């Protein structure tokens, strides 16, 4: 079980809603994933445009918590404006705060991110901050009231998995009392399991499921990998050694050891 504010969740998988072949495929994937949190965005709407209405109708009926994002924002003030618009539409204080500093790899801008996070937290938002694995930045974000840290595994949509597992591991160990999700760059269920084995509280992904040949099957695969990784973390891993250590007891071995030498 995972608790975020007043919400208790049984799934530790968060799913994005973009890039699916169809709304039906999205619906099947959401169901198969077991997710309870879906990310959405806001985009320009022409008058009498039905596409947005249809999408929102689908999403509402899935019964998940909604996590609106500020994707596409480059300045703190833009993100604050989008967050306020999202709060009015989606009736939630949750906001996935994205403030991009580089368009090539969609890396977060730490300065603008921190500025926006402060303003939003002061205004009663529950901020889920999309960030890097920078420990100092993450501590500053928490200090200004961020509810959930979401360091990237690798650039959004890259599918490269966890490119800096050392940094992510250190971040988890140094910040053990806050909610941390790995967000972005997850390409395979094994990547998600790796993050969960480190002790991350969950993972957020989109492209890995949406671009799969079968989004529904991949969603199900991620469901089990996240569960598996979490169980492994809770079980506690064995110590790593440099050399072999026989797993079968060596005491009272039969005759072949007597023939040596």
């Amino acid at each position: 079980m995972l608790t975020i504010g007043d919400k208790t969740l049984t799934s530790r998988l968060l799913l994005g809603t973009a890039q699916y072949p169809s709304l039906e495929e999205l619906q099947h994937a959401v169901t198969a994933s077991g997710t309870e949190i879906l990310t959405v965005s806001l985009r320009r709407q022409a008058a009498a445009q039905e596409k947005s209405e249809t999408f929102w109708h689908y999403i509402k009926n899935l019964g998940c918590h909604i996590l609106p994002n500020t994707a596409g924002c480059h300045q703190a003030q833009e993100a604050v404006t989008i967050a306020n618009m999202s709060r009015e539409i989606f009736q939630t204080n949750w906001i996935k705060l994205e403030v991009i500093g580089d368009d090539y790899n969609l890396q977060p801008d730490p300065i603008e991110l921190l500025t926006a996070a402060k303003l939003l937290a002061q205004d009663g938002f529950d901020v889920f901050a999309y960030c890097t694995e920078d420990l100092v930045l993450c501590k500053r974000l928490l200090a200004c009231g961020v509810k959930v840290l979401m360091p990237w595994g690798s650039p959004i949509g890259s599918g490269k998995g966890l490119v800096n597992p050392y940094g992510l591991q250190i971040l988890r160990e140094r910040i053990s009392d806050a909610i941390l999700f790995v967000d972005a760059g997850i390409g395979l269920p094994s990547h998600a399991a790796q993050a969960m084995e480190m002790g991350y509280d969950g993972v957020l992904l989109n492209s890995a499921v949406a671009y799969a040949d079968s989004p529904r099957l991949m969603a199900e695969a991620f469901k089990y990998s996240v569960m598996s990784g979490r169980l492994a973390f809770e079980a506690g891993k064995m110590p790593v050694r440099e050399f072999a250590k026989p797993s079968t007891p060596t005491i009272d071995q039969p005759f072949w050891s007597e023939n040596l030498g």
Partner: protein
Amino acid sequence: MIKVKLNGHWISVKACPLTEALEEWGYQSETFAIAINHEFVPQSCYQNHQLQEGDALEILSPMQGG
């Protein structure tokens, strides 16, 4: 008539409260939110918000997102 920028396109509209302009433009659903000149305008303020020459409006709705 005044000129305002609606979702990136300049259009002409009479100087009027926002509610009237929305009706004229055909925005009827409740699933949109508005920012004018980069500032959020809550729904409760539409009636009293008077459009001005050169205003830049963003009318946004739910869409797929990651």
